[in-house]
């Protein structure tokens, strides 16, 4: 009951945003559908008449359908940038197959005797198409448009990834922030839209046969009206920021930028998978990245200094089960070999090798240890097993490979890796439940995601890296019997980033500089 109420409150409170997202959603969907019908219908008719083109055209549309939506959006960015255009293009490509295929099938399935009769009594092929084949195929064609509509309403949520808006903003923001109300505020209207449009089209479909000529008039009008909801935003020369859905909703993210820096910048919501590329392609000017991300180096970006300290420190350190340290005390000194050895720029470089140059994490780890003179040959010891876990991104893969080599080179223990554990929650639960013995964790995550202390406590701690570390170390030991070993050195925190050249040209080094610049604009 309480849950429902608060969802309703959330939706009321965010009603402006919700309306705007819904309208954008509907607009994107129907603009794409309109284009898909305008192109798919004639194409379907054409291949029904020229049989030899049917297989290649349907095959091509089928291949388009199998491209994962995020990947398709990724392909489209270099060509079309970010925003409505690539989103509509992607939706259009997905809507194409059901429309072409159903038009083709619908026409092909018209009773051959009827078509033969039409021909035999003297109708021209144009008359046969318009008066016999199309009206009789219409229920099947409409079923295709219905399918395309439902697919499009669903896929349109992904438009939020490339700054085209829509209900995906709430959905992905909610997922990132683990905010159920926010997810539902996006997901429920999206589902309702799909159900509503499906229902309306089913009514049109049932009218069929007798009133088919009316459908032919009504449907395009509905589509044009619905798609006109969406007006392309006017181009603007001011700086444009792209923030991830998670960043948008966080106190130590966009909300903090507004309240602490009073930063007022034109912004769009975008997926972090695409954000760096869009920044590099100059589709965006400022993005919310992670300070040790390899793409920082690959794309020539710089981080802006957080001069008012709104981003909490995310220093990485091995988080270990206390029991394993008691059983194998030699582990402490071995794991701490790495303490202070990797600063931000080294970590960025290592991430760059893995994320961008596609080097194997094992090789990157080995090269690093060799450079630092820390590498020792494995002893192939059989005294025990240490289980190492990692989250599902490059940096963690590199770190646990380094730890594995250190453990096997400096002790008689064998290290076993369990990589690719979905996220913080999964790693942490695995550790608490004795499924793994250690994994690299970040102090900020320990504080904000796992401990979740009162706001005041967070505010008090957040500016100082050492106090955060000391706080999580003590609390984890007390509450979970887990030990934070010494920090590795780098701070993988949120950071605002710009292209080097532009930042230099505008003389922006800190977030305050950025605020002053945008105020002047």
């Amino acid at each position, binding site marked *: 009951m309480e849950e429902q109420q608060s969802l309703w409150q959330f939706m009321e409170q965010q009603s402006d945003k919700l309306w705007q997202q819904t309208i954008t959603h509907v607009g994107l969907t129907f603009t794409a559908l309109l284009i898909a019908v305008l192109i798919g219908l004639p194409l379907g008719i054409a291949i029904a008449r020229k049989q030899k083109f049917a297989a290649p055209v349907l095959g091509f549309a089928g291949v388009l359908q199998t491209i994962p939506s995020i990947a398709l959006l990724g392909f489209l960015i270099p060509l079309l940038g970010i925003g409505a255009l690539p989103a509509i293009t992607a939706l259009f490509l997905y809507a194409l197959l059901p429309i072409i295929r159903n038009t083709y099938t619908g026409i092909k399935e018209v*009773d051959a005797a009827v078509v033969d*009769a039409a021909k035999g009594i003297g109708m021209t092929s144009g008359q046969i198409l318009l008066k016999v084949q199309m009206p009789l195929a219409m229920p099947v064609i409409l079923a295709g448009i219905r399918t395309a509509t439902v697919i499009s309403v669903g896929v349109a949520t992904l438009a939020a990834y490339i700054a085209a808006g829509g209900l995906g903003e709430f959905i992905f923001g909610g997922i990132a922030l683990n905010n159920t109300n926010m997810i539902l505020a996006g997901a429920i209207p999206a589902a309702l839209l799909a159900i509503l449009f499906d229902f309306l089209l089913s009514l049109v479909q049932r009218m069929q046969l007798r009133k088919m000529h009316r459908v032919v008039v009504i449907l395009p009008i509905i589509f044009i009206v619905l798609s006109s909801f969406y007006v392309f935003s006017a181009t603007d020369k001011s700086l444009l920021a792209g923030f991830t859905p998670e960043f948008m909703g966080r106190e130590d993210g966009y909300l903090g930028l507004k309240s602490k820096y009073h930063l007022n910048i034109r912004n769009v919501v975008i997926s972090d998978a695409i954000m760096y590329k869009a920044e590099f392609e100059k589709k965006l000017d400022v993005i919310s990245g992670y300070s040790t991300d390899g793409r920082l180096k690959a794309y020539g970006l710089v981080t802006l200094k957080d001069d008012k300290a709104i981003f909490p420190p995310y220093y990485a350190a091995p988080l270990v089960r206390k029991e394993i340290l008691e059983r194998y005390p030699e582990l402490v000194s071995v794991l701490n070999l790495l303490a202070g050895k990797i600063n931000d720029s080294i970590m960025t470089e290592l991430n760059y090798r893995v994320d961008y140059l596609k080097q194997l994490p094992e090789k990157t780890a080995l090269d690093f240890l060799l450079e630092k003179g820390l590498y020792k040959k494995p002893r192939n010891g059989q005294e025990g097993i240490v289980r190492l876990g990692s989250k599902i991104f490059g940096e963690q893969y590199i770190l646990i490979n380094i730890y594995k080599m250190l453990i096997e080179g400096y002790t008689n223990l064998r290290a076993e890796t369990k990589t690719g554990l979905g996220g913080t929650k999964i790693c942490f639960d695995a550790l608490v439940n004795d499924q793994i013995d250690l994994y690299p964790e970040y102090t900020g995550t320990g504080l904000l995601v796992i401990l979740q202390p009162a706001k005041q406590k967070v505010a008090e701690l957040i500016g100082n890296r050492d106090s955060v570390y000391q706080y999580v170390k003590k609390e984890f030991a007390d509450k979970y019997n887990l030990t934070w070993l010494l920090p590795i050195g780098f701070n993988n925190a949120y950071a605002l980033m710009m292209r080097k050249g532009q930042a230099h040209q505008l003389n922006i080094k800190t977030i305050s500089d950025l605020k002053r610049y945008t105020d002047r604009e």
Partner: protein
Amino acid sequence: MIEVQQLTKMYQDTVAVSNVSFSVKEGQTMVLLGTSGSGKTTTLRMLNRLTEPTSGSIFIDGKNILSQPPEVLRRSIGYVLQGYGLFPHYTVAQNIAIVPKLLKWPKEKIRKRVDELLYKLQLPPHEYRHVYPATLSGGQKQRVGLARALATDPPILLMDEPFGALDMLTKLAVRKEFKELDALKKKTIILVTHDVHEAFELGDKIGLMDKGKMQQLASPPELLFRPANNFVQAFFKHHLFELEWQSISLKNIWNDLPEVGTEMYATLSSSQTLWEAMEEVANNNTAVYAFDEETKSGRNITFEHLKSAIQKQKQQP
């Protein structure tokens, strides 16, 4: 008058129709008979250019059919096909009105013509005009299909297995109706069927086809009594007795029958077949008489007379 000369249709290497020639006089009904794959339907479809021949030519009233666009040709020829090919999204009236509409008849004229045809085919217009084909019975659909072909009163009708989709009983009834329909009496009809009885009942002339070739083109009695080759003979073997008795009318043997006075009570007419006469004789204990309108003469009918008439037909060279 339809004149078909050396018509051949090849599909890649297979010959569908080979060197077929025939002519059909005005008002005649010609039946193309054969099993499936015999080339009869292909021959029919070449007449309204649904299939274009590989070689050979077709003249209708002395005019080569290639001299006008196929659509224009087809609008001037009635076409009835096996599944009837009614448009499921058109009402009965709309279905019948298709060709008049294509020919841009005025609305009122179309409406009148549709009602007229519905009356003739015993589908009361107020009841059937606005009904969709899906709700009609097989026989009714067949009649609507026929009405559509007759809408513009074309002199020629092409019929591809027009009764093929009907059940046995309905088929017999509809065929009888069809034979008696005034609207069809003056038409030149080319009808394709695989049904031997249908061919004998409706055809003035029957062209028996096999493997794309015309095996024999003749009147029904000729096919039975003077088969051109073994195939023709074998084709009718199973139905021979029945067909023989059905293919000859009393009129054909009139002079071989014993004459009686005109005051007798006649239960048969001279136009009836020997088969019907035999049924009448079998069902009557008393003497059976037949009457001929034309000569105003009467004849006595007995089994013996019928039997010897058949024998005589067979012995004719």
